């Protein structure tokens, strides 16, 4: 069996919520040993963000947490206590990577700033991923994904055309930053193989997100252009839009049963094919300019057709003719999507506190090394003995003393809703 690329890499992971854990999920999926470090008194809020009334140990059975912390190991350490901090620095000495996404000032307040970490392990690749980086006035800002969308210009480019900027329905900035932070870690490891030294990477989530809008900066700097909202239309393709389809036959979540089709005509050939499918060969000769001018009319025409048909059938019919079309897959339909099912994207893993359900598999499909979901997300403090005993050599008595002092533990102290 071919080894996963990151086998042998040890990650001391202080990250919480979504952006940082998303990064370390990518690393863990590809073989890194990730020690997810939480304090008994300051745990990853994602464990308890969604209330689960009546559930025992809700912090060990959250689907949100389970999605992005698979393949990791859980270590608890109260970094605010001198002994907890000292044990953490011992872990750093055994780690290749330290990663955190605290607010910019938190690591220093714990007396665990970059210089302290570098002193403990000069070979460590240290990645901080504060929302706005650690320098400048904006470092004092607190940022979650939607804040990043606003502050990076992504929201300013999204909307229905009435001036109101729109955020995505997820904390989009988080997985974007997490994906790039994982790359930063690996780039740091590659650089270390040459230099022999670690590095400090001050990743700003805003800067990463703004990088996804490069052409808008070209337009702004060359021509002074401001973003224009086009809803679902394109400045290149016409018609393009999101059209309502007939209600789904798959009755998952009846109250919200609505189906949509996204469709684009890239050129005259696409349009001719679509016009034929719509039974409007008389319009097949419209060129791009004419299609832009008559976009409203074409939207009506397309919408009248799609409303009478099933979204999946429409997509398959249009695609068979070569017209780019796709269902707007909702959170239910995506779980039953034939393409994702055929590729084995959804995996059902055993979990000691949760029933089996569909979880997404590793997105980076290394064809030969073939990464898999190896293990459910860790229970709180599940690997204290394995990591603190096995890696640091702490004795059972020492672990017991740490437990007694509430420096480590197997349950959060005073858990509530995050």
């Amino acid at each position, binding site marked *: 069996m071919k080894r996963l690329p990151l086998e042998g890499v040890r990650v001391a992971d202080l990250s919480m919520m979504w952006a940082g854990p998303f990064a370390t999920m990518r690393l863990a999926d590809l073989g890194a040993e990730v020690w997810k470090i939480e304090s008994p008194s300051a745990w990853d809020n994602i464990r308890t963000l969604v209330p689960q009334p009546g559930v025992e140990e809700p912090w060990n059975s959250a689907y949100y947490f389970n999605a992005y912390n698979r393949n990791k190991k859980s270590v608890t350490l109260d970094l605010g206590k001198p002994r907890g901090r000292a044990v953490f620095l011992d872990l750093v000495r055994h780690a290749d990577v330290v990663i955190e996404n605290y607010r910019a000032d938190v690591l220093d307040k714990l007396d665990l700033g970059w210089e302290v970490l570098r002193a403990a392990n000069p070979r460590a690749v240290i990645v901080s991923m504060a929302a706005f980086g650690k320098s400048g006035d904006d470092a*004092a800002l607190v940022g979650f994904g939607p804040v990043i969308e606003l502050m990076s210009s*992504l929201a300013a480019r999204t909307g229905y055309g009435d001036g109101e*900027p729109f955020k*995505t329905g997820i904390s989009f900035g988080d997985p974007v930053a997490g*994906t790039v932070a994982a790359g930063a870690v690996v780039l740091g490891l*590659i650089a270390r193989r040459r230099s022999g030294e670690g590095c400090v990477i001050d990743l700003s989530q805003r*800067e990463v997100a703004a990088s996804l809008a490069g052409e808008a900066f070209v337009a702004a700097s060359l021509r002074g252009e401001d973003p224009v909202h086009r809803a679902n239309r394109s400045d290149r393709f016409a018609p393009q*839009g999101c059209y309502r389809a007939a209600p789904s036959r798959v009755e998952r979540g009846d109250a919200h049963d609505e189906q949509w089709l996204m469709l684009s005509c890239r050129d005259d050939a696409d349009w001719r094919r679509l016009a034929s499918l719509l039974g409007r060969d008389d319009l097949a000769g419209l060129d791009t300019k004419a299609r832009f001018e008559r976009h409203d009319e074409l939207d009506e025409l397309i919408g009248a057709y799609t409303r009478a048909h099933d979204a999946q059938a429409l997509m398959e019919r249009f695609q068979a003719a070569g017209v780019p079309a796709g269902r707007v897959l909702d*959170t239910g339909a*995506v779980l039953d999507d034939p393409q994702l099912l055929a590729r084995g994207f959804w995996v059902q893993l055993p979990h000691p506190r949760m029933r089996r359900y569909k979880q997404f598999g590793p997105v980076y499909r290394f064809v030969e090394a073939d990464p898999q979901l190896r293990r459910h997300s860790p229970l709180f403090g599940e690997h204290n003995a394995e990591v603190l005993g096995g890696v640091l050599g702490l004795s059972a008595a020492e672990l017991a003393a740490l437990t007694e002092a509430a420096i480590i533990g197997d349950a959060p102290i005073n858990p509530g809703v995050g």
Partner: protein
Amino acid sequence: MLEVGGGIPAAFAARWMAGYGAEVVRVETDGPLGPLSADEAVYLLAGKRRTAVDGWADVADLAGFADIVIEDQAPGTLDVAALRAARPELCVVSVTPFGQSGPYAGYAVTNGVAFAMGGIMSLTGDIERTPLLTGGSAAFYLGGINAFTAALMAYYGRLVHGEGDWVDLSLQECAAGMVELYVPGTAYGQPVQLRTGNHVRAVWGIYPCIDGWAGAFCLERQIRGLFAAMDRPDLAADARMNDPVQRATPELDEELTAHVYAFFAGHTKAELLDLARRHKVPIGVATTPAELLDSPVLAARGYFESVETGEGSTARVPGRPFPGLGWRPSGAVSAIGELAAVRSAWSGAGS
């Protein structure tokens, strides 16, 4: 590094590779995810050597000298298995809309269609209107950042273990694996979640302010900070408003929404950011690219760089995505060169 791109995903990944020091050759080909617009080309092609080719045999020949190939051609266009068999150290990342296999592998997409199929669009927009595309080319750029990271992982694996690999990257899977708690929730038995618009609840939403738009996105631990930023000790003292269960009821949420609306409506973006800093509250303001280009913070952090467009003008664009490992500014968009010159340079380097 060889970029066999037609569209944004390969070009974006390769741009960052070039910035961090890779010698990137871009093969000028058409592809199903292209072509690039003129502005995209300025952003994504700077800092690379570009070459014309005469068929896929030329591409395969160049790949024989590369450490990494990133491509976004249709499945089966490049014979990746043959490339890997000839050179086990080679790392290849293939970015396609749906991956190399499955019933949709040959489907045609635009960025909009690809985004629709990933799940995020269904959650974006107003429930009374259509689902909404995220501006720009979000699906394609997501492919780019994932190709960047996957290529680095493959290359690291080669350095450590001696062999490269082939990464089959699907735009759909990149998105479907990042739908926050919503897809996992539905998978675990929660109802289908649809779009919640800009306003999920009073303390998690976008509001108009004096000179634009801004938003607050507070977790429970930040509620008191928000009330302090609003200068509303009465809300801080109101037991109902401090109880997350009561505050979530429609009546109380509506009441609080009115207060938050009034707060935002009475402040400018600059004032809101000042309050956000002082009270450590997650408040952001809608910012345009032009405003970011003028940001002294981003200037001090060395975020932007200049690109000579090749047409006598200079654009300013995002440069290094993260500091700490050096960065080679991309400089200029070069003209398309001759294959023979690239081949000569690479074969010389190889020997």
